[in-house]
């Protein structure tokens, strides 16, 4: 009797842990039944494309959240990186533009972490406000830099083959952006779960005071998480504008909330300490599938906001239940 009960309990907690997988399967089946177009080749390609930029940003966000912080500046970072990178293709060539774009993401992340460290802000709420402020700053810089205008690929006469490949090329069966995702996922997963720095980030997120008093350099962890997040936001920005072949200075709007949603839905706790980039992949998949399915079912985009919000609430509620 007792054993049966505990087996049931373990089963229930496992189900709760991987609820997101069940939900994904459920979503696929239901949508495929109601709308057979869902499984068509063109729709799957569509899903893959939607997946691209969001997964990059969300992977970076995962580290910030595991470290016990949050980063709302990714939208601003995406705006800035996108307009700067696209504008440099013509004068500098595409490879220097690409590298400068990525470096700019790292600079934004570093700046965030320096501000957080120097103000002594050690709570998620403080980080939320600081990075929210920085998002506006980065967005403003993007607007100033681009004079508010959108830049298009067709205005660029120099070679832009690299970006075209990122936007629409294939390597064998997979799209180039998907291969980039796989490579980055592998690197980030190894960093998170196999390295001393990854461990330090988890411990920092678990209990900053205890980590510091055990001789762990939490300032180093904080710099690392924001640098990773800034870098991944830059990668996301490049994948995004390469796909749509234009870069407006407001291109990144909404990515911060979608990324946080994906990370939390995936099962990384907002309290910090526990989580994984692999979970985030599932979270992003769910978010993308959900919006694709709602699109196919003809649900208005206003209604979709409400659904997204409800899912986030549900994920946080579930997370709190797990902790208790």
């Amino acid at each position, binding site marked *: 009797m*007792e054993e049966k009960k*505990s087996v049931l*309990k*373990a089963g229930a907690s496992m189900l709760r842990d991987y609820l997101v997988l069940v939900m994904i399967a459920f979503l696929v089946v239901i949508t495929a039944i109601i709308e057979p177009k869902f499984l068509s080749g063109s729709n799957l390609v569509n899903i893959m494309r939607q997946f691209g930029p969001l997964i990059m940003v969300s992977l970076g966000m995962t580290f910030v959240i595991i470290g016990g912080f949050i980063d709302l500046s990714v939208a601003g970072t995406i705006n800035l990186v996108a307009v700067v990178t696209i504008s440099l293709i013509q004068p500098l060539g595409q490879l220097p533009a690409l590298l400068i774009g990525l470096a700019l993401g790292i600079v934004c992340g570093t700046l965030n972490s320096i501000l957080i460290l120097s103000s002594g802000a050690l709570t998620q709420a403080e980080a939320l406000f600081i990075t929210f402020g920085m998002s506006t700053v980065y967005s403003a810089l993007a607007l100033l830099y681009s004079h508010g205008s959108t830049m298009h690929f067709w205005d660029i006469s120099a070679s832009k083959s690299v970006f075209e490949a990122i936007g629409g090329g294939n390597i064998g069966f997979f799209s180039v952006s998907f291969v980039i995702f796989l490579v980055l996922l592998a690197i980030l997963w190894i960093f998170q779960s*196999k*390295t*001393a*720095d*990854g*461990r*330090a980030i*988890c*411990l920092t997120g*678990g*209990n900053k*005071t*205890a*980590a*510091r*008093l*055990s*001789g*762990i*350099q939490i300032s180093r962890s904080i710099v690392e998480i924001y640098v990773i997040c800034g870098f991944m936001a830059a990668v996301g920005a490049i994948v995004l504008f390469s796909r749509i072949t234009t870069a407006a200075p407001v291109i990144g709007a909404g990515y911060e909330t979608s990324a946080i949603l994906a990370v939390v839905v995936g099962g990384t706790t907002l309290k910090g*300490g*526990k989580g994984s980039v692999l979970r985030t992949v599932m979270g992003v998949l769910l978010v993308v599938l959900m919006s694709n399915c709602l699109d196919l079912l003809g649900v208005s985009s206003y209604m979709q906001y409400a659904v997204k919000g409800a899912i986030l609430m549900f994920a946080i509620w579930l997370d709190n239940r797990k*902790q208790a």
Partner: protein
Amino acid sequence: MDTVQSEYILSIKDVSKSFPGVRALDRVSLDVRRGTVHGIVGENGAGKSTLMKILSGVYQKDSGTIIFDGQIIDHTTPHESMKRGLAIIYQELNLVNTMSVGENIFLGRFREMKGMRGTHAKAKELLENIGSKVSTTKLVSDLSVSEKQMVEIAKALSFKSKLIIMDEPSSSLTSEEMVELAKIIRQLKEQGISIIYISHKLDEIFEFCDIVSVMRDGHVIDTKPKSEFTRNELIMKMIGRTIENEYPERPRNVGDTLLEVRSINTRKLHDVSFTIRKGEILGLVGLVGAGRTEIVRALFGADKVRGHKVLIDGKPVHIRNPKDAKDAGFGFIPEDRKFQGLVLPFSVESNISMASIPRFTKFGFIRKSLEKNIAAQQVKSLSIKTPSTRTAVNNLSGGNQQKCIVGRWLEISPKIFIMDEPTRGIDVGAKYEIYTLMKEIAEKGGAIILISSELPEVLNMSNRVLTIFEGRITGEFIPETTPADRIMSAALGIVGGES
């Protein structure tokens, strides 16, 4: 039993509760008579807290019955049980620091009190009733621990509580404050209120309680009137074996000077300088807030301090943060185990290994098998009781949690081990094990700086003590040869002097 008022305010029958891997309570039965003070003693992990949390509705029982004031209590919530007249005052008091005393007492019930004026008037009445003169408009953050406790008791009374549970109420009280607490307990009893008094401190149990229950390993071992227990019997029942001494002998082989600290000055500390020798236990004695913790935090680099000098083996070392301190050979047990020491949701393994990460890392990569060995070895050599090294440290008892922190540092063999309240909230058996460990560390040539609010502990363990009063060192004594009252008066700032 079916009379209007049974003689028991609370009857617990065959209550069981399991957590994953642990049977916390095993068919526990307990009756609390009306108008008595009922003591519950037991080691940490004996099930006292679990039982209390079931009573208050924080946890739900798996089986058994609970009858409170003639009513069967099944599913309850903390709020419901308060309304029913069962109040718990937790060790870590549950008040809102940024609100006033009156607001705290009637938190969420301002409308019932007809606004702020009514709230403060009624709060004043309740506090006066228990002989407290705290102003009801004062902020809780400005109160002393004992004043906060008064506020908690007043809050309990505001619910017309019939039973008040006090969980380790004395753990951060000074001796004068204890006298106050004793007075209040007597008063409450006179008003017909029953009290469950949970404590590790046998002196208090014998002073306050009428009836004593002993818990061990999730069972109630024995319940008897206090007068029928002897002190030794109580200890034996608690730990299930006899111990001859409360303290081991002091370490004997004190060597050369190991650490020299020169002039720590901060807002709270004034020109603090001292030395410590190899193999020595140095005790810091002083009131809570005298600056003992600030001294060791400054030394360990946990707080920013400038201008002081630290020499280890005669060589100056520069400590800017805890990592520098660790690299220089310091170990540190912080005063607050849960919030400063442990990463509670993490495993025993990662909690033990967190100070020695470089030792199982190669080229930046963690070697899992080495880490596992390190943790398993500490669990074994310190006999930490845990189902496995992968268990969340949160599920361990206080003593075993503390041993995890000790093990964390032993792994890097620190030269100077700072221990701030190493035995707070842990039971007699585990305390003795920690003392033995301290002695071992010292005898291997390590030095220990010991802070404790329990004077007998510092005096019996230390080779030498420094008294701290208002941020200054007011005296240096050899406790083996100095009467305790002389040390105490130096710690109270009454007389200074060397011995």
